[in-house]
């Protein structure tokens, strides 16, 4: 009895590191599947970030819900997305057949450019121009959405 107990303990002690090592190997082999942030203790390089979001939007089974989540999440970060991420997102919008999403996303990008909109926004438009032409997406400027189109009554002034 005692001998078997000892043997199993020894076995367990011997196998735990092996299992851990194999887990670590597996985790490093699997690419980041979604929007899961890397665990603390390890930073994420910009390339990894771009690849993560690009892969997220390139998911062929993505639905409108996930696109919206990705856009809302990215809108809260201190960055302007790379053109390749934007292209992936626009193509995702095409796959879920939601035109309004694409326009709204372009507007959101423009808002994200902040004070440097005159430098950054033309660059982004220039980079994503082929995709826009391919998918038939109009820029907010072409729709007249770069300036306020409708003036809504302030709800506090209605009564």
């Amino acid at each position, binding site marked *: 009895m005692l001998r078997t107990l000892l043997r199993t303990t020894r076995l367990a002690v011997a196998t735990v590191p092996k299992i851990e090592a194999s887990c670590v190997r597996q985790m490093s082999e699997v690419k980041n599947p979604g929007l899961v942030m890397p665990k603390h203790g390890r930073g994420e390089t910009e390339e990894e970030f771009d690849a993560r979001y690009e892969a997220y939007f390139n998911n062929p089974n993505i639905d409108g819900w996930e696109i919206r989540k990705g856009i809302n999440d990215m*809108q809260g970060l201190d960055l302007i997305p790379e053109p390749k991420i934007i292209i992936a997102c626009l193509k995702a919008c095409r796959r879920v057949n939601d035109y309004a999403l694409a326009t709204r996303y372009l507007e959101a990008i423009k808002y994200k450019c902040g004070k440097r909109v005159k430098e950054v926004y033309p660059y982004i438009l220039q980079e994503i121009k082929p995709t826009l032409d391919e998918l038939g997406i109009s820029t907010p400027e072409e729709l007249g959405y770069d300036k*306020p189109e409708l003036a809504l009554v302030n709800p506090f002034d209605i009564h």
Partner: protein
Amino acid sequence: MNSILAKGLISQSALKKVIISQRVTERNVLVAIANTFYGRKQIGKREVVGFGITGSYIYFDKPDFPMPAIRFREDDDYIKKLREKEKGDWKKLTIDEKKALYRASFCSTIAEISAPTGEWKSVAAGVLFLMATSLWVFAALKIFFYPGLPPTMSKEAKFRQLREKLILQVDPIDGISSKWDYDNNRWKK
């Protein structure tokens, strides 16, 4: 419960059924209440399309959360036709149709949300009005209510105080008395 079982008034399986049916009723009531106040009954037939800001079925235009949880409009016949057309090539959509699709999903464009409202003018007017009022009130108090300055603030009183300080040799190292020439009875040069 145990006492009921022990007396043999009800079998265990029957009791279980009663409890389960009670719980189902309670849950249904709770769900109904939640739906009435927070649920999809409040949004009509508008499509729920995402998580939005808080996860509630709320439409909210906000540039840092550009995608609200629900569409802005219910689909009418025109929009339904457009949604069918949207599944085809987007190059065939006209500008007006694109705009209609956008306004079906969203209320305001981001340019409209972030347009200046001119509200700062009324705020500035209010602030300046309050400041002017308080100045007038202060002036009125000064003229009609407050007594004048105390006698120690008169020129003679101040001169007297200075003289006493010099006589008492207040602060003789580097203060006021160090500057008085006591031999010649005048300020040092």
